[in-house]
């Protein structure tokens, strides 16, 4: 799928989203409604025009760009890492999740040696604790309720 087609699909998605938001805004009282309702209607109209214009442009084009499938795969892999880290924070809490994430990521992706990985992780934990005290920072405890260094 070319970038143009993806862009058309994304705009169509925005059109549907703005229509739904306009419908939702219609349920608000008058004073709360006027701004989001008219913005959503205007945005839906622009999205609709944009879909038509992009479709015309796409039809005119004869050559399609080659997809960078390899890069896309890599991106999906790293999105998985990022989202996985978020899920870990939700389950284990910030500190245990961070320690686990750094140990695994630095070993697997960054190709650090074991000792460098352990030292780097310890350093990050130390800096986090220091900054938490100096700047009054907080982090989530997680659904398991593990409270490490907090």
């Amino acid at each position, binding site marked *: 799928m070319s*970038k143009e087609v*993806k*862009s058309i699909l*994304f*705009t169509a998605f*925005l059109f549907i989203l*703005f229509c739904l*938001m306009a419908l*939702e*805004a219609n349920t*608000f*009282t008058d*004073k*709360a409604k*006027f*701004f*989001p309702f008219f*913005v*959503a209607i*205007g*945005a839906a109209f*622009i*999205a609709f*025009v*944009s879909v038509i*214009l992009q479709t015309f442009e796409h039809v005119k084009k004869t050559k399609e760009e080659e997809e960078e499938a390899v*890069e896309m795969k*890599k*991106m999906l892999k*790293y*999105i998985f890492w*990022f*989202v996985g*880290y*978020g899920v870990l*924070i*939700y389950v284990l809490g*910030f500190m245990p999740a*961070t320690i686990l*994430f*750094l140990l695994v*990521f*630095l070993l697997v*992706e*960054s*190709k*650090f040696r074991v000792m460098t990985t352990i030292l*780097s992780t310890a350093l*990050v934990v130390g800096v*986090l604790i220091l900054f938490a005290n100096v*700047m*009054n*920072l*907080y*982090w*989530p405890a997680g659904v398991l309720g593990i409270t490490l260094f907090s």
Partner: protein
Amino acid sequence: MIESAFEALSIVLDPGRIPFMFLGISIGLLIGLLPGLSGTVGMAILLPFVYGMDPHTGMAMLIGMAAVLHTGDTFPSILLGVPGSSGSQATIMDGYPLAKQGGAGRALGAAFFCSMIGGIIGGVVLFISIPLAKPLVLAFGSPELFMLAILGLSMVGILSGNTPLRGLLVGMIGLMLGAVGGAPAVAEYRYTFEWVYLFNGLPLAVVALGLFAFPEMIELLAKKQSIAKTEELKGSWMQGIKDSIKNKWLILRSASMGSLMGFVPGVGGSVVDWITYGITKQMTKDSESFGKGDIRGVIGPESANNAKEGGALIPTLLFSIPGSGTTAILLGGLSLLGLQAGPRLVNEDISITLSIVWTLVLANIFGAAACILLSKYIAKLSLIPATKLVPFLLVVLMVASYQSSRQFGDIFLFAGIGLLGLIMKRLDWPRAPLLIGFVLSQATERYLWISMERYGFSWLLQPGVIILGVIIIALIAGGYYLKRTSEKSNFA
């Protein structure tokens, strides 16, 4: 005013605040020298940490970061031939050839010296503009403030380059995201779906982090950005400084131009950089050596890009008009610190505005000094591969996003907006308009509502409103003209 300025200097130099300014400077230099990361990312990372700080300290950190960004971005431009940020593209034209010829030290010396002088001139321009703008700012009522918000929103077209329709659409997404939470005119919650986290609206810091930082991190990793070859730090630093002093009028001219162009909202660092380079080349008699390693090709753009920051703060601080993603976040930062851009910043909170001027000046001096003294070590940082740096940055991003409201919603929102930002980046959709729409959403709705309640439709005929309407049209036309001029210089 002078007395207030010295009072502000003593506030900035308070030993309790100086470390935060240095923290901002360090992060600004780091962000600048890592190709792929912009000032918007730096500002988004720092924003959640200013929550709860006193306004002077918070501003010292944010402005310290923004002030030196274009000092740090010179390293990759000259040593690697890769722009550290969009504002240092033109520096490559002559800086990189100079480095190849063994004059990296000379080019960097000139660049840092000019960045410092340019930054100071930018600060002076901001200082001078305060008393000039004060009577104007204080005369504004809600209709004029609404028009100023519209002026800020109209910048989305300029920021969108060749795709103004997409920019407009993205700006409207920002407006709608800004409408989430309590309505300003009536006690009613909108688009919250009974989720308590959304009752106070979406936190700006999380939106900014997700929109800008998340996609950059993923792309850095996916492209495995690491640079194989760097030019050596040869050549005399002093020679570069001497060259700059010899071209003092060029520095002054370029810095003044940079400040003035920075004042026009929507004109980014890359535009200022290329226009200054083009004008420097045009106004030089023996311009054949440009592009082959002429030191004047480094002096011109480097003087302008730091000076631009001072100019860009004038519409942001005095008129609440953010002209870029970075200044949009700064505007949000002011709200987090309990401040309001516009009339208050030239009246009750004048000490904050003056401390911003001082921070701008001092950060440029300290930033340039750090670059010259620690250049050997700083230059090495730009060679760290993404896979070795990003995991640590991700931890910082997670901590930062959680500080906004200290609920799990922050982390979910960070991931959600991050994915939206990634899709937009991959599809070449502009992202800065979303942030501008988001930041201005509440103000636009509030001032429109007050104007309509108070004046009906007659506010549209007020002289201030008409003048601002004309200015909006002129600025949009001017912005497009400057962009086109910059593109021509780029191709030439």
